[in-house]
């Protein structure tokens, strides 16, 4: 595979990324770039390494080798660099990971107050705006335990957005949801994409990928097998492995 050149304008640059868990090589030399405002969807079977790849992008997994640049700043394994990068890279998890001891509003203002040193009144105002945007203004004083899955994930998105990140990572954001609740989360994500957010999304929602993605990347055995526009990947996949994977999905 041709080595991706470091593009001054790109938001994410990944060079020769390798990640091992013990003796098992989960990511086997990934090169990728993501441009500002681009929505990239990662697809692939479970265990293909797509979630691990995503978790490398904000330093939740340490790299075995390779290089990641976020907005031209290299991700280094020290707490200062990690904190700095994570302020700019929001992440949404499959299991939401809301803080159960804090109300919805407290969940959202926690990091702006303690990391960005925002005054509490300003943080609350911003949080309420975000909650209106995801349609949950009236839930601000509820605890996460009282929310439905779809509501919880929308709060988690608002919580990540409260840090005003340049990039948003989504790790299978709808996989833990009941089918009827998937739509409300996807529509929030779609809105975010329309607002110009740079997004990297791991998902099994092929409908979302077709509709919203600028580019689809198919990962198998820790490598990028094929990438291209949704039309290309879903309409006319070139690689046998991509064809097999997509074939299995449609049955």
């Amino acid at each position: 595979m041709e080595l991706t050149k470091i593009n001054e304008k790109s938001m994410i640059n990944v060079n020769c990324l390798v990640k091992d868990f013990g003796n098992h090589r989960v990511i086997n030399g990934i090169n990728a770039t993501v441009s500002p405002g681009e929505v990239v969807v990662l697809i692939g079977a479970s265990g293909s390494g797509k979630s691990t790849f995503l978790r490398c992008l904000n330093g939740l997994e340490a790299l075995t080798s390779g290089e990641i640049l976020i907005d031209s700043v290299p991700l280094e394994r020290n707490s200062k660099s990690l904190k700095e990068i994570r302020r700019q890279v929001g992440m949404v998890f499959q299991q939401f990971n809301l803080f159960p001891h804090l109300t919805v509003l407290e969940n959202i203002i926690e990091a702006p107050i303690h990391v960005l040193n925002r005054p509490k009144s300003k943080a609350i105002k911003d949080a309420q705006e975000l909650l209106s945007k995801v349609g949950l203004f009236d839930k601000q004083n509820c605890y996460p335990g009282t929310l439905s899955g779809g509501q919880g994930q929308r709060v988690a998105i608002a919580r990540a957005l409260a840090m005003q990140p340049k990039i948003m990572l989504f790790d299978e954001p709808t996989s833990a949801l009941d089918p009827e609740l998937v739509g409300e989360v996807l529509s929030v994500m779609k809105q975010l994409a329309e607002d110009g957010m740079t997004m990297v999304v791991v998902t099994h929602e092929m409908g979302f990928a077709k509709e919203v993605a600028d580019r689809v990347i198919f990962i198998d055995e820790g490598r990028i097998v094929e990438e291209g526009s949704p039309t290309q990947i879903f309409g006319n996949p070139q690689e046998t492995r991509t064809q097999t994977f997509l074939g299995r999905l449609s049955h």
Partner: protein
Amino acid sequence: MNLDFSVIIKYLPFLLQGAGLTIELAVLGIAFGIFIGIIAALLKISHTPLRYVAHFYIWLVRGTPLLVQLFLIYFGLPQLGITLSAFASSVLGLGINSGAYLAEVFRGGIEAIPKGQTEASLSLGMGKFLTMRRIIFPQALRISIPSLGNQFIISLKDSSLCSVITMSELLQTSQRFASVTFGSLEFYTTAALLYLLMTTVISAVLRSLEWRLSKENRTRAC
């Protein structure tokens, strides 16, 4: 049989005073124990060599009787030039002792919090210390409250051992009047009832605390 509980009435104010000291010892001891316990728990789960210090402390304290620890502090330390009052020795002994058990309680609580909580907090740009202080520990403390209450009750009863290093707490006061009046049964029964009263109140207070802190688990009309 010559039981005469009327004698108790006369000495009750002194017994209550002794019970007051018992409460004081238990509260200060457990407060000190919580402080040491948190530090030891954090050290134990840290990946620094300091975790061995925590291991050693827990091993040493849990493996020796509190009475021996109190003797070492009150009678032994003066030989090293460290003389503590009986009160300070008692609080220190109860604190060090309960701290070793609480360290394990807190460690268990911290480890019970799902890893996703830490990941979510870190991914918001919060550092490890902030994550522990604001996200993990508050949740761990809630889980730990029943065990914390248990240790409080144990410490309250264990404070009776401080009687042998001259503390006039409930047991020693009872002992004194029991021998003066030859009313062992009356005085020790009263002491037992007072201990029972104190531990019952503690249990009730902790149950309500637990209930109040678990409000996020209750479904509230939102």
